[in-house]
């Protein structure tokens, strides 16, 4: 057994590598810059976690989502790794001063992009020998990615400030255009690309055209009741997710819960874990659900609303069938869905009248830092603020130190133009998604093409346009009802001593 496989076995408890992992790891260990596009569920994190045991110094991992980071940290700790630390917010850093002063002692340092804007944190990082700079969910870097986060744009500068350590950019979904953006923004040199097909042969694809919203809801209820679970249903709004969760439960679809970003942290965690432990059959959710949910046996992913981009759709259906068993993805479509998708997609773009008004009211002596406060006070939504800050930074290069009325007007025009360009791009992506919905040819081939590949092999259960019968995913057996709950005294007794009695009985 070679060293890599040995470590894989000892540290991570796996007997062999999954496709792609070994090639990526070998390139990382040879000190190359690497861009790896591996499908979700293929064990992306191993690509930096394993090299960490061979590299000197520390591995720095930048991750966009707190929950994602927490999952990774938790996983590493469960495997007995003590030298791991995560910083998500400035307040967090304060709690961890101690860790901050002993930063070089950690093997894994997780940080949010926000943290990397902090001078104190960067100063502490400069004392660390960062042997690998990892960017997780790297497609967030690209404004042409479906989940653009302006914070990520500064990562190139951060990497440079840390002496340009070798870089590993990881993503599950990046079109060729996004891949270019990642490489350029991070300043990756002669990057090795490991691009694995986005195609997931065990996921069958179908689109169901419905006559109306009501028809769609009825079809969904029918499917949810008959499809073999567990499964996920995506909605474009919190209200719909909640409403349909209730309807599905009443309609005999089994144990159903909803999940969205408006719930408090504990509730979200409970629902996520109930789903993980098969205590729920269906989760009705918004796009907030899924990242970091590592569940192998998801049998179906349904979309009640069409996502605004094919990349988002591919990412979401990718949560089905990670165990490799046959799974199904169905998108329900009715007239009017395009308008909904467009409204959701463009909600992040500030209204031009409001923007003009806001520009006019900027204080004349607004220096660079001061503009941020104006962004915060402008009454925009969080996502609009992020975007505005980004456009502002980009637009202000044209503005002089003194903001005269004319300069404000110029600033507005530049920002408005940038926003308009983004709107056009979003419409283009939406058109692409819509064309996919209305296509008569193979849907799998179309997805793969959108990512710049050609489809080599078609599975038997391919897509509705290739003659897929969704009946094979249906079941006659009714789902079990919610677990019967005992009176509280018994429930409590079983909680603390249930296992022991079981063990004794087994002896």
């Amino acid at each position: 057994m070679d060293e890599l496989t040995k470590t894989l076995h000892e540290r991570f408890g796996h007997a062999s590598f999954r496709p792609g992992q070994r090639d990526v790891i070998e390139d990382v260990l040879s000190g190359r810059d690497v861009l790896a596009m591996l499908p979700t569920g293929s064990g992306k994190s191993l690509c930096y976690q394993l090299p960490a045991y061979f590299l000197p110094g520390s591995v720095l991992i930048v991750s966009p989502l707190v929950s994602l980071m927490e999952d990774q940290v938790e996983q590493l700790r469960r495997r007995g790794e003590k030298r791991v630390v995560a910083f998500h917010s400035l307040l967090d850093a304060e709690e961890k001063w101690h860790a901050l002063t002993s930063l070089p002692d950690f093997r894994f340092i997780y940080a949010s992009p926000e943290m990397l804007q902090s001078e104190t944190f960067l100063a502490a990082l400069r004392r660390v020998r960062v042997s690998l700079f990892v960017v997780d969910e790297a497609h967030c870097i690209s404004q042409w990615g479906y989940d653009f986060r302006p914070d990520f744009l500064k990562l190139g500068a951060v990497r440079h400030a840390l002496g340009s350590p070798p870089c590993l950019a990881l993503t599950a979904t990046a079109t060729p255009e996004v891949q270019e953006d990642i490489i350029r923004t991070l300043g990756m040199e002669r990057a090795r690309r490991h691009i694995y097909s986005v195609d997931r042969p065990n996921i069958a694809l179908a689109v169901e055209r419905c006559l109306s919203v009501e028809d769609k809801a009825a079809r969904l209820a029918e499917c949810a009741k008959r499809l073999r679970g567990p499964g996920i249903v995506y909605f474009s709004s919190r209200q719909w997710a909640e409403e349909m969760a209730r309807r599905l439960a009443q309609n005999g679809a089994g144990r159903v819960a909803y999940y969205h970003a408006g719930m408090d942290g504990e509730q979200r965690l409970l629902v996520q874990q109930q789903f993980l432990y098969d205590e729920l059959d269906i989760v009705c959710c918004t796009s907030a659900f899924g990242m970091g949910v590592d569940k192998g046996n998801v049998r179906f992913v349904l979309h009640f609303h069409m996502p605004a981009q094919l990349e988002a759709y591919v990412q979401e259906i990718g949560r089905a069938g990670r165990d490799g068993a046959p799974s199904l993805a169905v998108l329900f479509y009715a007239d009017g869905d395009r308008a909904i998708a467009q409204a959701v997609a463009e909600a992040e773009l500030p209204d031009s009248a409001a923007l003009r008004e806001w520009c006019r009211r900027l204080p004349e002596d607004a220096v660079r830092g001061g503009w941020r406060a104006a962004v915060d006070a402008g009454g925009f939504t969080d996502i609009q603020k992020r975007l505005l800050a980004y456009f502002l930074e980009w637009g202000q290069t044209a503005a002089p130190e003194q903001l005269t009325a004319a300069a404000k007007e110029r600033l507005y025009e530049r920002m408005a133009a940038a926003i308009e360009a983004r709107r056009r791009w979003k419409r283009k992506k939406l058109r692409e998604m819509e064309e996919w919905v209305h296509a008569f040819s193979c849907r799998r081939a179309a997805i793969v093409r959108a990512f710049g590949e050609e489809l080599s092999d078609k599975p038997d259960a391919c897509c509705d346009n290739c003659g897929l019968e969704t009946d094979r995913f249906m079941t006659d057996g009714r789902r079990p009802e919610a677990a019967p709950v005992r009176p509280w005294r018994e429930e409590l007794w079983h909680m603390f001593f249930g296992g022991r009695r079981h063990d004794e009985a087994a002896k």
Partner: protein
Amino acid sequence: MRHGYASFLLAHCLRRLNGERTLAAVYHLLSGKKSAQTLQDCKWFQLAPFFGTWKDVTMDRLEEAALVLVRKQRAAPVHDRTYILTEKGRHWLDEQAAWFPRYVNGWRYHEIEPLFWQRLSLIGQTLSNLSHGQRFIPICRDERTLLWVKQYLLDKRSRQTLARALYDELTRLLAAVSEEAATVFVLRLTSARRIGWTAEQIAAWLQKDVLYVQFQFRNVLHYMMAEAEAGRAPVMAELMAGLAPVQLTQSAQKTYEWLQKGKTIDEIAALRRLKKSTIEDHVVELAANVPDFSIAPFVAAERAAAIQAAARALGTRKLKRIREALGGIASYFEIRLVLAKEVGRWMN
């Protein structure tokens, strides 16, 4: 009852407020706004138990509840957004006495309730899984709690003894509340067999109002903490270690409000005509009691780390010794701040 608990809560508040405050005051009270005005209202109208007990309440919810009361002639408007209970309303409220969460003490517990619950539920989950010989994913992600629980369990000589003691104590405490409240509480717990249910899932199962379920749950939690403080629940008292019920002085509260408006210590001292050292005392009080209070503006990160390291190395909380060990570079104020923050955070 599937709906209507909001109306019940509001009716209770209206009776106490007696037409002297608008719905906005109720909103601030229930959501736990820390303004001098709201804190005063709490005491004046004897509504302190409800302070901060419904953190995500919205004005819409309250207006809707008020509308229901008016429609059923249980309340009548007196001014804009101001209502008083009618005779009928008072009767109705008295008849619903069973809904009253009598152990709820928001004033005292609203800040520490989440941390107490996190500890309790994580310890329950851990002991349950140990007993079942299973690995598990913690039901809590707050690192403070994860570390605390880990240390707590390490300090215990026997997990079996602890499991027994916790089980006995929970059974005894739950027997003292209603069967329904006990059921709600147990369903919220996570064991090796079952992930805890959300309030909403419990409400659907019991066919009750979600808000009612939340208050039943809170009622039990506050009862447990009160019993712990009264010396009648030793395990719960251990779980409360370091979780000081918040009792900010009015004066510290004022300072807090000025700080939030961006004033410096010197400015506040001048504004309030108080000594600088008095304001510094307030800041230390805030650091110890307000979980989200940042001390970064008052002490540089490097220095704080040095103070922390020195306190740990010396194993002392004596300011003078820490100051000497650092060669006098840190002020007493800075040292007190860092120590206060640590007490608040790590609960030692």
